[in-house]
C-alpha cells in the first residue's frame, strides 16, 4: 500500500463519524430543532455498540445497538423539548453531560478490552484493482452508508414533498401548523433521525475507527459536527465537503507528529478545535450566506394554540 493510499484511507476513516453525525443534525435543525446533545448521543452509541458487538461477537449487531442507543437518547430530548417545551439549549447540554457520565459508568469494565472490528466489504473484482480498489471499494458498510445518507438527505429535503414539509416546519412552524401538518410529530421524527445518525457515528468510532472502548473517546467530535452544520450553511453537499476537510485536518496533525518535526504534539492535537473556530468565524461573519439557509424557527419551542 502506498503512502498516499494510506493517507486517503485514514482521512476517510476520520471523516465518516463527523459526516454521519452532521448529516443527522442537519435534518434535525432543518426541522427547527437545535439538539446540542450530539456528543452525548454519539458517546452512548459508541459504548453500546462496542459492548453489543463484544458480547454477541457480531459487529453488525454492534452497529444496530449504537443506532438504537442514539435514538433512545434523542427521544429523551424530544419528549422534554417537544412535549414539555423545555429550553432546547439547556436540554441538549443535559443530554451531553448525562451521556458522557452514563457511558463512562456502563463502559468502565470494558475499557481496554480488544473489541470486534467492523470488516470492510470486499467487493469481488473491484477491491483488488491497484490504488483505486482500496481507496474506492475497500471500506466498511458505514462509510458507504454515510455517503448514501448525504445524497439521500439532499434528495429528500429538496426534491420531495416530505422534504418540503420538514423545511416548512423549520422555517415557519405556525404556517406549517395552519396548513395541517403535525409540527411536533415531524420534529419528533427528525430528532430521532438525528439520534440514529449520531448513534451510528459513535458505533463507527468504537467498531471501525479504533475497535476499542476508551472513555470520552468522541473527543468533541459531536460538537465539531454541530459546527459543521453551521459551516455547511445547512446544505448536505457542503456537510460532505466540510466533514472531509475536518477529517483531513485531524489526520494531518497525526502525520506531522509522525514526521518528527519539533512542534509540540499538544498544538497539533488542538488543531481540529482551532480550525473549527476559524471555520465558524469565516462563515458566520458573512451574514448573506448564513441567513439564506438558516431555518428561521431554529431553537424556538412550538405550542399550538388551542
Amino acid at each position, binding site marked *: 500500500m502506498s503512502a498516499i493510499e494510506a493517507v486517503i484511507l485514514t482521512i476517510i476513516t476520520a471523516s465518516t463519524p463527523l459526516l454521519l453525525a452532521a448529516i443527522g443534525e442537519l435534518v434535525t435543525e432543518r426541522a427547527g430543532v437545535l439538539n*446540542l446533545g450530539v456528543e452525548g448521543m454519539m458517546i452512548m452509541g459508541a459504548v453500546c455498540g462496542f459492548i453489543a458487538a463484544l458480547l454477541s461477537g457480531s459487529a453488525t449487531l454492534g452497529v444496530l445497538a449504537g443506532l438504537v442507543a442514539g435514538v433512545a437518547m434523542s427521544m429523551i430530548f424530544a419528549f*422534554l423539548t417537544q412535549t414539555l417545551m423545555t429550553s432546547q439549549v*439547556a*436540554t441538549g*447540554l443535559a443530554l451531553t*453531560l448525562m451521556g458522557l457520565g*452514563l457511558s463512562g459508568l456502563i463502559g*468502565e469494565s470494558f475499557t481496554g478490552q480488544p473489541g470486534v472490528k467492523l470488516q470492510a466489504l470486499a467487493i469481488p473484482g473491484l477491491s483488488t484493482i491497484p490504488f483505486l480498489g482500496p481507496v474506492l471499494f475497500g471500506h466498511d458498510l458505514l462509510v458507504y452508508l454515510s455517503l448514501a445518507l448525504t445524497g439521500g438527505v439532499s434528495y429528500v429535503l429538496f426534491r420531495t414533498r416530505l422534504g418540503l414539509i420538514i423545511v416548512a416546519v423549520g422555517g415557519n412552524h405556525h404556517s406549517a401548523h395552519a396548513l395541517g401538518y403535525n409540527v411536533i410529530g415531524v420534529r419528533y421524527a427528525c430528532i430521532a433521525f438525528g439520534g440514529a445518525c449520531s448513534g451510528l457515528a459513535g458505533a463507527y468510532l468504537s467498531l471501525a475507527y479504533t475497535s476499542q472502548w476508551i472513555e470520552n473517546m468522541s473527543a468533541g467530535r459531536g460538537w465539531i459536527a454541530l459546527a459543521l452544520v453551521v459551516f455547511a450553511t445547512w446544505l448536505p453537499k457542503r456537510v460532505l465537503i466540510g466533514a472531509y476537510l475536518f477529517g483531513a485536518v485531524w489526520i494531518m496533525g497525526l502525520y506531522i507528529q509522525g514526521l518528527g518535526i519539533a512542534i509540540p504534539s499538544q498544538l497539533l492535537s488542538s488543531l481540529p478545535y482551532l480550525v473549527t473556530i476559524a471555520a465558524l468565524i469565516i462563515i458566520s*461573519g458573512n451574514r448573506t450566506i448564513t441567513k439564506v439557509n438558516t431555518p428561521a424557527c431554529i431553537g424556538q419551542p412550538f405550542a399550538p394554540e388551542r
Partner: protein
Amino acid sequence: MILLLERRTSPSRAMTFLSPVLAIGVTVMIGGVIFSALGLYPLKALYLYFVEPLTSLWSIEEIIVKAAPLVLIGVGLSICYTANVWNIGAEGQLTVGALFGAAIPIYFTGWQSPLVLVLMLALGAVGGALFAAIPALLKTRFNANEILTSLMLVYVAQYLLDWLVRGPWRDPQGYNFPQSVPFEGWQLLPTLGDGRVHIGAMLAIVVALILFVMMGRSLRGFEIRVIGSAPRAGAFAGFAEKRVIWFCFILSGALAGMAGLCEVAGPSGQLQPTISPGYGFTAIIVAFLGRLNPVGVIFAGILLAISYLGGEAVQVEFNISDKSAQVFQGILLFLILACDTLIHYRIRFVSRKVKQA
C-alpha cells in the same frame, strides 16, 4: 389518555420554589430504582449518597472544598444564562485562569510576600476573563455561535495545560512527573479549621451575595434581565446587547479563572495535568438548579458537592464507578428542566375522545 399542557395565566410562584425540590425528589427516587436494579439495597446506597457525607466533620469540610469552585463558577454562569449568553466553556476559562495565576510561583519560586497571593488571585481572574473574551469577541464581531466557540476552547486550554506541565513548566526536581514545582507559603491560599477549607469558600459566598444585589438592585442587573427575556424591548430602552455579551463573558470568565486558581493554590498546591473533575461543566447544572439566582446557586453548589462525595462513598462501599455521580447530575438537570415546565403550564391528562370533541 394523552398529556396536555395548559398555559397558566401567570407563572406559578409556588412552583418556582417547589420545582427544584420536586426535581431532587424524583432524582433520588430514580436513583433508588437504579440501585435496586444493580442489586444493591437502595436505601443503604441512597443513605451513603446523600446523608452520610453530612455526618462527619471531615466530609462536611470536603463538601465545602468542592462546593466553593462550583458556586464561584455557577454564579457567573447563572448571570450569563439569564442574559441568554451561552458560555459553556467555563472549564477552559478555569484552566487558563489557573495557568495565569500559577505563573507567579513558577517563575518567581522563592518570592514570599502577601502581595504574591493577591497577584495570583488577580492574575487568575485576568486569565479567565481574557480567555472568555475570545468567544465574546467572536460573537460580537463575527456573529460566531458562542456555544460552539467557547466549548472548542476548552479542549485548546486543556492541551495548553498539558504542554506546560510536561514541558516548560515541569518541576526540574520532580522526578520527571508531569507537574510544576510545589507552591509554598504565600503562594498557597490561607486555610481555615484543620487546614483543608481555604478562603475560596468565603470568596464564593461574598461574590454570590454581591451579584445577588447587583442583579436585583442595579441598572446593570435590570439590563441583563431585559436583554435576556426581551432583546427587542431592551434595544428600544437603549440597552446594547453587545455590551451585555461582553459583560457576561468577562465576569463569568474571571470567576471561573479565580476558581481555577483556588484549585491549584488550594487543594492541589501545584499544577498537574488535571485541575478539576469537570467543575466547569457541573457548574452549568448548578446554575440551573439554583434557578439562575446567585443565592440559589449557593445551595445548588452544596448539593452537587454532596453528590461528588456520595459518588466516592458508593464507590468505596459497593465498588461501583464514581461516574454514577455524573449520571445523577445529568438526570437531575433533565428533571429540573422538566419540572420548570410546571411554572408556566398546568399538566392535565385528557382522554383522546375529549380532545377530538
